[in-house]
């Protein structure tokens, strides 16, 4: 991975955050956040709860609105322009902690919905694409079932496949394994590792430090809305610079 990280500097910038600030009422959730993510780069964002890490990645596809600073995704500046936002969302896939599958649609319909209605793909093509991704997440036999009939791990894999069906350039993961029973975490992480190895640009908010160690090019540590530290995983875990990072790592790696 270290080698890949060195080559990254030659890659084009996919996401750029410049002095991003956000408030919830009087509460300052994001303070002057700067972040650059290059094509094919994997960034893991960690930090204590309430540190603003979910808010950060939700700003990238405008599920949350930032109030100051600039966010550029694939060269497009995020503004209030709905057209701009829709263009960015088409190219940015997102996986949520609570899966957020559509419970009234079958798995295959969950997957084909956006390709059909956003990409205007013919239904037959969309279904072929969906089956391809279902095979990649290893649950093609569940295509005709409804989300409620699947286990948590299966649902999250469907959610990943659903995001991939839009053929995104960037994938955002918002604590994808936090709502899963322990025995299902691995099956989801395996899919994410495969995706990373294929060269997808990824930003993952996660507490899975093993995943961060093996996959990330950069680990970002956030606390109280600030990016406290950002480093390659070897450096980050072996020699954390800030006291806050050390404290966080000691708590999360203690058991």
């Amino acid at each position, binding site marked *: 991975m270290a080698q890949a990280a060195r080559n990254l500097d030659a890659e084009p910038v996919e996401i750029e955050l410049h002095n991003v600030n956000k408030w919830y009422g009087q509460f300052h959730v994001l303070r002057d956040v700067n972040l650059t993510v290059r094509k094919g780069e994997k960034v893991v964002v960690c930090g204590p709860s309430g540190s603003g890490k979910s808010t950060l990645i939700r700003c990238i596809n405008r599920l949350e609105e930032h109030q100051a600073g600039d966010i550029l995704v694939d060269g497009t500046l995020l503004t209030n322009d709905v057209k701009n936002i829709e263009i960015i*969302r088409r190219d*940015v*896939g997102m996986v949520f902690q609570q899966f*957020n599958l559509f*419970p009234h649609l079958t798995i295959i319909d969950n997957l084909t919905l956006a390709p059909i209605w*956003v990409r205007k793909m013919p239904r037959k093509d969309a279904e072929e694409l969906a089956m391809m991704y279902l095979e990649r997440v290893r649950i093609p036999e569940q295509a005709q079932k409804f989300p409620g009939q699947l286990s948590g791990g299966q649902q999250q894999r469907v959610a990943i496949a*659903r995001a991939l069906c839009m053929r995104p350039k960037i994938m955002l993961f918002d604590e994808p394994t936090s709502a899963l029973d322990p025995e299902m975490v691995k099956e989801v992480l395996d899919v994410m590792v495969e995706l990373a190895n294929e060269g997808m640009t990824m930003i993952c908010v996660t507490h899975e430090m093993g995943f961060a160690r093996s996959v990330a090019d950069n680990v970002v540590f956030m606390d109280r809305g600030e990016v406290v530290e950002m480093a390659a995983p070897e450096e980050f875990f072996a020699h954390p610079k800030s006291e806050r990072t050390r404290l966080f790592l000691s708590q999360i790696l203690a058991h």
Partner: protein
Amino acid sequence: MSTTDTTIPNLTPRKKAELLAAAGDPEAVVAPPGGGGGPVLWVRQNLFGSIRDSIITLVLIVVLGWLGYNFLHWALLDATWSGTDAAACRANPDGACWTFIGEKYRFILFGTYPYGEQWRPTIMMIITVMMLAASCDRRMWNWRALAMWIVGGTICGILLFGGVFGLSYVETSSWGGLPVTLVLAVLALAGAFPLAILLALGRRSNLPLIKALCVGFIELIRGVPLISLLIMASVMLPLFLPTGVNIDKLLRALIGFMLFAAAYLAEVIRGGLQAIPKGQYEAADAMGLNYFNKTRLIILPQALRLVIPPLVNTFIGFFKDTSLVYIIGIFDLLTAGDSAVKDPAWRGFANETYLFLAATYFVFCFSMSRYSQYLERDLNKSQRR
């Protein structure tokens, strides 16, 4: 179960299974307690469990039996079935007079619609009921239903109005009875439902003007009684219209009724919208769906199935509330029945008439209720774990 159960033949199956299970027999199945007693045991346990229960049960049986017996005698055994005038009925005051219904049913069902032309509303009602039944099938919920209703509705309109194809013209003031009730209920509710969806969405809109308009409309309409709205539509509205412009009274009542129903339905639908988790909106947003597709494909299908019970409740309520149009002199089913009762030659047979009317309303309302239960089961089948 007595404590002296020591001999094996006296063991109940349940006790036996428990003992076998305790002995480690993997085949032994212990049923849950209280299960499988049959109706006799159920009656003994629930209706004759104690002396007090037994007394209450017996008293109720006697009272209900006496009421049922009397009703049966009045309605069937002692009833007058034949004849063409009131004389036979008056000679038999202890029985129902179905002769009256036999003589008057066409007036009750069709009101003042020209007698010789009453086959037209009959066919119209058959078509309407058939279209309603066909619309119950979920496979019809697409352009096919729309096409069917446009074609069928046009045929129904031609039948009722006439004036073309050699049919004599019948103006709406001559319409009456069940066709009027059906026209009011079907058209008003069919118009109110989409309007209600727009109002409910508008009330949750981020755009202040749209939100204010929807809130204002809903609160204003909900805040006045239906009767006052109908009177406004029939008496006040013509005063504001320029002379020469004359909107049909039935149409005015229909629009008033539709607006009223829309306000109520909007609040029911809003309840469903509020029950949809934020994550569903976010997932739809994140994949780039626009507002229209997100609402149509993700939010409404889930919100509407959540509110089927209150939605059908409101539908049933408004179906019966169509009878309030009697107040502005529209001759619906209830008004027609009422007029039949007032016929001097047939005074005193109100019970039979209202029973007949109640039965007619019941058929429609009960069908709606049963259908909604079927629909709920059918829509939720897929979502059970």
